[in-house]
Structure formats: C-alpha cells, structure tokens
C-alpha cells in the first residue's frame, strides 16, 4: 500500500510574546495509507491539534514537511477537509448552505452545489433540516453538518479535530457509530484527533499514542478488532483490554497535566 499522507520529520516551536519558546511538536514521522482510519490520542499539551492544523495547511511547520499523494502541503487544499471541534458553522446560513459552503467558495455552479449538499445531508441524517439555521439545531446535529460540510468537498483525507468533544456521552456514542457508517460508505482516509481513548479504539485501524511536552509519537497500536463494528464491541474484553493498554501508556502524563492545572 502507498502512503496517502506522509508526515516527514515535522517539528513546531511557538514563540510567545515574552520571547520564550514552547516546543509543541518534535520530529513527527507518520504515514497513513489510503482508506485507513487512524486516530491520534494523547494528553492535553501533546500538540495533536497543532499537528492537524499543519496537515490541513492552516499552520506552517517550523521544520519538516507534509505530503499528500506525494505533493507537499503549503496551504489548505481541496484534497483535505477539516471537521472542527467547536461551532464553526456560519450562523446566518442554513444547513444546506453551510454544507455547500466549501463548494460555493470553490466557485461551483449553484445547482451542482445544491445537489451535492443534498446528497451529504441525506448521508449524515440531516434530511428535513435543510433550511434550519445552526442555532436551531442540537450539538449533535450541528456536528453532523460539520462532517457533511467537510465530506461535500470530496477530500482525499478527512481531518477530525476532537469532533465530538463538546457533545454529551450518549450523543457521542451515537455519533461515533454514525461516523463509522459514513466512513464505510465514503471510504475516505480519516485522521481523527481525540482525547477519548475508547473513541479512538472503537473507530480506528491504528491508534497513534502521543507524548506531551513536546508532542512526539510514543508508540503505535494496531486495532485488529473485526469490522463492521457496533456499540456492543465496547463491552468486549478485547476492546477493553486495548483501551486499558493505551490508557496505561499515557496515564502518567495525564496525571502530570492535571496537577499542573493544564
């Protein structure tokens, strides 16, 4: 298999206003194959969101480079689409307009935008809510719009930045299964950032475990649980064992982070 996404020795150092510098990421090497579902987990401060923003092209790395399909990333592009953690939907646009936003920006004709947006509205279970505004929707529905908007531009790689972090536990479980079924339908390559270990194990083919301060790859865990998966899997001993294994890898850092108040 060829790597669709290749992260080559990426480091990121931020310089604060008081001239002190913070090393967010140190020499990250990663490659992700086409059609793979990969998650990155790590304690807060492990720079995982920073890495995602570098991959999306929103942030230039201090050193190293990112390649998508062999092309070096230097700005956001149509081959990648990001699903954001917080509300990043335009509050003055309807669901269908929000879903079609990326296509509209790309200058695609209106009828085509409508048709494509409708397809992804159907896929994400938003049918009937086309002309609602984001403030009229629940958190879970809003994240569906967020996912649909990213899928609508037909990216090669879907980047998800803790997409369900703001949802309550039950909604999160439902959204996880829906994300799985959408992934199975669309066969996108997915890179998910999360702090929920069970979410990462449940969804992924591989889980990359990050260390904090500076963020670097600690280890990688292959998840060989059978697919298709449903929520029952979460009670399976093999599942619990994997979650536990990953938790032990980052437990010390999470505890340190809690003590620092980070």
């Amino acid at each position, binding site marked *: 298999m060829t790597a669709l996404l290749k992260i080559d020795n990426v480091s990121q150092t931020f310089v604060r206003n008081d001239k002190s510098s913070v090393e967010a990421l140190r020499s990250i090497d990663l490659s992700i194959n086409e059609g793979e579902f990969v998650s990155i987990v790590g304690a807060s401060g492990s720079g995982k969101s920073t890495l995602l923003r570098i991959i999306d092209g929103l942030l230039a790395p201090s050193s190293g480079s990112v390649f998508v399909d062999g092309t070096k990333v230097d700005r956001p592009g149509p081959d990648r689409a990001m699903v*954001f953690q917080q509300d990043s939907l335009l509050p*003055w646009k309807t669901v269908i307009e929000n879903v079609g936003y990326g296509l509209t*920006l790309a200058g695609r004709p209106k009828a085509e935008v409508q048709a494509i947006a409708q397809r992804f509205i159907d896929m994400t279970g938003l049918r009937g809510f086309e002309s609602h505004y984001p*403030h009229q929707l629940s958190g879970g529905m809003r994240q569906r719009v967020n996912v649909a908007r990213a899928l609508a531009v037909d990216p090669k790689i879907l980047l998800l930045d803790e997409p369900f972090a703001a949802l309550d536990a039950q909604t999160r479980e439902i959204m996880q299964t829906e994300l799985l079924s959408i992934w199975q339908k669309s066969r996108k390559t997915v890179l998910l950032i999360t702090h929920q270990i069970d979410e990462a194990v449940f969804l992924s083919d591989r889980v990359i475990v990050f260390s904090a301060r500076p963020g670097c790859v600690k280890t990688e865990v292959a998840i060989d649980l059978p697919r298709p998966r449903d929520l029952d899997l979460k009670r399976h001993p093999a599942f619990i064992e994997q979650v536990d294994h990953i938790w032990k890898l980052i437990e010390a850092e999470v505890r340190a982070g809690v003590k620092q108040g980070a």
Partner: protein
Amino acid sequence: MRKVYDFLEQDTRAAAVTRILVSTGFVLILWQLLAMFVTNRLLLVPPAEVASALWKEFQQGSMAENAWATVTAVVTSFLVSIAIGIGIGLALASSRFLSLTGGPVLSALNSVPIIALAPLFIAWLGLGFASKFVLVLLVAVFPVVVTTEAGLRATDKPLIEAARSFNATPLQIFSTVTFPYALPFIVSGIRVAWARALVGIVVAEFFGSFAGFGFAIMSASQTFDTARVLGYVIVLGAMGLIGSVLFAALERYLAPWRLE
C-alpha cells in the same frame, strides 16, 4: 395581573405595540395632570392644545414645508454618513497602521462636542442645506465608524479558520464571514447615528435656516408659542422612535442567532 405581564413580555408585534401605547398613554396622563397644576400656559400646555396647534400647522402647510426641509437634509446626510462611516470603519479594521494612527484622532474628534461648532459651520457654509448637511454628517458618522471597526474585529476566530480551511481567498473571507458577522453591529451603530443625526439637524436649524423643525421650534419659542414648540418636539420624537424601532427590527432580522 400575571397574565398582563406575560403578554407584555412576549416577543410579538402586538405586544410591542401595546408596550408603546401603554407608555405613551402613561406620559399623556402625567402630562395632563401636570398641566392642571401648572396653569401658566407659557410654561406648559396640556396635550390637547398641542394636538390642535399641530393640526393647525398641518392645515396651513407649514408642517409640510418644515418637514420637507428637515427630512431631506437629515436623510441625505444620514445616508452619506452611513456610507462614509462604514468606509472608514473598514479601513481602520483592515489596516493596523491606520487604526493605530487614525484611531486617536477619531476618538479625539468624537469627544469634541461638535454641536458646539454649529455657529462656526454656519459662518463657513452659510444658511441652508450645506451647513446642516456637514453638521449632521459629523455627529452621525462616529457611531458607524466605531461599530463597523468593532464588528469586523469581533468575528469569531473559528469561523475564519474554517473558511481558510476551505481555501477561501481573503476577499471571500471578508464577504462570507467577517462582513456578515459585523453587519448587526453596524446596524446598531446606524441606530445610534439616526438619533444623533436628529439632534444635529435641530441644532443646525436653530442657528441658521429659514425652514425645518428646528427653525419652527426656534421661531415658536421666540413668540412664546409653547404649544407649537412642544408639537414639533413630539414630531421629532416620533421620527426618532420610528428609526429606532426599524433599526432594532433590522438588527434582529440580521442576527436571529444572537437572541438564543
């Protein structure tokens, strides 16, 4: 009583109209009572006399004449100040240099009571349209400048980030994110600008003009015609109220998500 409160708190047109009627009625009653104690008609006249004075102005055609003079001047000047205000606000929000250097000048100008310069403007520009136009422009432009700049700078960072992530050009970010976000802010500035424009026009007309509400108020007070003075003040109040209600409605229409 509880039911009355529930009705008045509603966000419906009927409730809004009732609120206005109730408060207007309250003011009229208070006024009437006061006029029964203050019997010197130079100081205060009861509502009915004011109404009949207004009616007379209508019949004689001086109301139309004054209204034409005031409304044309205030509306043109108000529209121009919106355009200029948005323009300056845009420039300040898009250029850090302009904001840092021009900002202090503008806030200094804004704290000068420009109204006090009215006699000077009349000396420069003469009696009539030009001096009114400039004075109204100067008082009305600042709220629009300030809210435009503030609104454009207030845009949620995640919205801009998302637009960038979808490869939006700077112009697209402006037209699809920053400007729509700022629009309700701008309208609230326009609402304030309208109230200030009305003050500006009246003062300008006090000092130098031969027609307009300000001129009519001045000439009526010089002949101790208190009923006419109060009549024109009420007309001006109504203009202010209508503007305020319209722009508040526009604000709600443009940003329904802010209410929830």
